[in-house]
């Protein structure tokens, strides 16, 4: 009896130890795992996993061309279409097929657009893009299939087990490896970019239709997508976003394939005029549209979707809150760009004053009285006297109200404000010219020798929006 009890005790001990070990390794993996598909912790895969079942009506599958060129928030804004970018940087053919399959596990889209850029390459040239495409999916038979298809036999175990690749990330861990990156909770796949780069129309744009022969791998990919559409019952469309394409004949070949199979094909290199693309304003670089270009393309696609499928307007439906949040996020990003370009302190304050999510800290050095710019005129509408402005200090602008919270005096205790569960604002004046008198946690957002420093913190996204000087 005693022996039996001992055996049971040991079995329980082994099980408990295995559980604790498993839990520890799981939590370690969560920290170390590859987290972004777009860069900077933005992950369309994570955004997909955060989406409840059967909400997505339209999917755009592809690479950065897609997440830079099609913003689901614009389809939502225009027609209330629940669209999603299943897009990963440099998405290859195998990845696009398996990523789409991953989405189809929980969603039943009516229309699926697949970007044809994948035809132009077979293997990734950027190591990070291999990881983005192969390691961002949850482990399943589908992720195994992706690794098997893309990697083949070489290094397959490293990609399947993942630890051999991701363990070295201990060298680059940052805050969002431990704390959720909030835009992933609502984002719909787009990567918002307001940069402007003057570009030229692509080569071969106006060439006659001259399809080249599709390689076996390319043909197989297109066929697999076609078969998947038949099996899952969605309307399949192939499309090409505007970019500096040097291989129009390959896109023509895809077009020919599409025509043969009754698949709709939209080539926005050939038909750039159709959506009013302006090569001097609508690109972020030669391969990617910026937000202006993306709006043109997205709004065209919104109309096109309605012309080929019956898509309900989900606006106002609480279940689709992520699309609302996504649109709000777009406008916040736009506002940030506007803030960067604000010509004066007054214009800047106009941009931030009414957003309830923002806490804005305005730090003024006492030497401001000697400045050629009349800063006081910007503060006066908020009831700040000239004396108060000229003596310097720190003001907080919140919900349209400007409140002085700190004088630039050594004797005063530090001003402390909890901005979120992660971030604490502290203001302390140690001595004249002390460089670190406005801090969030331990990071300085001080004047750095400028008359006026402005810091905007978004309490909802729990992050600094901008820190700039006037």
């Amino acid at each position, binding site marked *: 009896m005693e022996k039996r009890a001992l055996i049971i005790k*040991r079995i329980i*001990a082994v099980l408990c*130890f295995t559980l*604790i*070990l498993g839990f*520890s*390794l799981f939590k*370690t993996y969560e920290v*170390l795992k590859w987290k972004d598909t777009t860069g900077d912790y933005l992950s369309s895969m994570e955004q997909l996993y955060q989406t409840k079942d059967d909400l997505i009506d339209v999917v755009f599958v592809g690479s950065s061309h897609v997440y830079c060129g099609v913003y689901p928030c614009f389809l939502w804004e225009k027609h209330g279409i629940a669209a999603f970018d299943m897009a990963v940087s440099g998405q290859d053919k195998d990845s696009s097929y398996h990523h789409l399959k991953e989405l189809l596990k929980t969603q039943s889209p009516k229309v699926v657009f697949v970007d044809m850029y994948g035809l132009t390459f077979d293997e990734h040239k950027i190591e990070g893009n291999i990881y983005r495409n192969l390691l961002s999916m949850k482990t399943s038979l589908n992720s195994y299939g992706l690794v098997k298809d893309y990697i083949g036999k070489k*290094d397959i*175990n*490293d990609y399947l*087990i993942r*630890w*051999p*690749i991701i*363990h*070295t990330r*201990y*060298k680059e861990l940052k805050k969002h490896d431990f704390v959720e990156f909030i835009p992933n909770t609502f984002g719909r796949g787009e990567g918002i970019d307001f940069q402007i780069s003057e570009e030229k129309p692509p080569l071969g744009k106006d060439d006659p239709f001259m399809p080249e022969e599709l390689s076996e791998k390319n043909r197989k990919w297109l066929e697999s997508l076609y078969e998947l559409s038949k099996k899952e019952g969605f309307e399949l469309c192939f499309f090409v976003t505007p970019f500096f394409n040097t291989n129009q004949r390959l896109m023509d070949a895809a077009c020919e394939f599409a025509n043969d199979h009754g698949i709709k094909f939209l080539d926005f290199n050939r038909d750039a005029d159709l959506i009013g693309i302006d090569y001097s304003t609508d690109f972020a670089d030669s391969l990617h549209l910026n937000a202006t270009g993306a709006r043109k393309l997205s709004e065209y696609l919104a109309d096109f979707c309605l012309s080929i499928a019956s898509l309900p307007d989900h606006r106002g439906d609480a279940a689709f809150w992520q699309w609302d949040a996504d649109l709000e996020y777009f406008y916040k990003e736009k506002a940030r760009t506007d803030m960067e370009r604000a010509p004066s302190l007054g214009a800047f304050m106009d941009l931030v004053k009414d957003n309830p999510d923002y806490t804005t800290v305005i730090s003024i050095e006492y030497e401001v009285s000697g400045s050629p710019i009349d800063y006081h005129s910007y503060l006066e509408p908020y009831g700040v006297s000239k004396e108060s402005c000229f003596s310097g200090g720190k003001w907080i602008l919140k919900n349209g109200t400007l409140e002085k919270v700190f004088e630039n005096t050594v004797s005063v205790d530090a001003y402390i404000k909890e901005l979120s569960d992660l971030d604490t604002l502290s203001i302390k004046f140690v001595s004249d010219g002390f460089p670190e008198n406005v801090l969030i946690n331990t990071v300085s957002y001080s004047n750095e020798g400028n008359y006026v420093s402005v810091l905007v913190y978004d309490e909802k996204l729990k992050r600094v929006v901008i820190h700039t000087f006037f």
Partner: protein
Amino acid sequence: MLFNSFEFVAFFPIAAGLYFILPKKIKPVWLLFASYFFYMCWNPAYIVLILATTVITFASGIFIGRASSKGSKKAVLISGISVNLAILFVFKYFDFFIDNLNRVLGIFKINPVSSPFDFLLPVGISFYTFQAIGYVVDVYRGNVESEKNILNYALFVSFFPQLVAGPIERSKNLLTQIKAIREKNLFTFEAAVSGFSNMLFGLFLKTVIADRAAIVVDRVFGSHYMFGTFELLLGALLFSIQIYADFAGYSLVAIGAARVMGIKLCENFNTPYFAVSVSDFWSRWHISLSTWFKDYVYIPLGGNRKGKIRKYINLLITFLVSGLWHGASWNYVAWGFIHGFYRVVGEITKPFKERLYDGLKVKKEAFSFKFGKVLMTCILTGFAWIFFRARSLSLALSYIKRMILKFNPWVLFDESLYTLGLDRREFGILIFALLILFAVSVIRYKRKIDVGDFLNRQNLWFRWVCLVLLCVAILVYGEYGIDFDSAKFIYFDF
């Protein structure tokens, strides 16, 4: 299949798990099958060699047991050993022999001969050959009975935890346990936990310390002509650490894996860098090999029984052979010679040193005295390791020359040491891991128990925390994976 591979992580639980649940009679057969599978993962063809060694030495044992006269026993012994050494020679030393022969022929302007073979060195050949030879000699000496069951014997030669890099087992220890597998249950829960702990700590030594130190070592030894005194000193120091963590780590995994299955392998390392003399070092470093050389080379040569001069010659011969055992290259021979030289000089100067200490009234019981001896031993062995690590004798000499002549103390201050492959963070990890190794070594030194047994004696929470942290440390900070050219255990090549 390396111990630090996911293949082994999958293989070992299956091998050990089935070993537990199979009936006693089947257990040795299963272990033999698992061992051969393990070996064939490197190169299936070389299973023929291990089978040949097994059959030859098994038959030698049987014939020695049956031989009626001492002369015929000796004839069987010599032929058994010769055939095994011939196999070892062909696969390990033939190219070395041809190279040197061609050098000699070149002196006399005779056309060189080319090697008729193009073999890869079979993994672990030196280890299992020596183990098998040891068995034949033991049977000849009457220390053990010849084994009648070839399955038992084949498992003795090929037992997978120690097959490719030792410890080089004696038949009295391992074969006796293998024979007992059919009769009694060797498994105990405590031994299994202790074995598992040893395996983890061994992997920690290998992946976190040895392979991390190897990054700097490979860089410094690979381009020593770029560096001055302090980089080269650092390279030599880190190689001393690397080879210890690598080989002691391997031995711990081997000993631990066997212990999980209830089999106790002999000790292979006992805090060698705490040794107070080179002689003491060799009683703590690769113990199974040094005792093998002592029992089967040094003593048969006459040991210390034939006067001082013969003793010194015997010591030198033993260390030269030991050097050659480590590799078919003159730098290994030089390494062996240096250690032999240390031993001889140590023996000769011992009375003078004692007189000097007494004359200077040195406090021999003081910590500083012992520490000084430990430090001196580390310097001497560390110097010899340069010959071991350099790819040739001339490179070793060039390394040492630069280390002496290219004095560059500024590199200690301008952070250029962080450009040798390990940045500040990586050095921090290495130093932290070394502190853990030091703490474990102190426990080993003071309490005479290994890390597995030490943890077994602790409270559950402490043991579990240590084991979980070891697992996490290996998986996170271990050097392995896609960007890492996974280093074999250094001793696999010997």
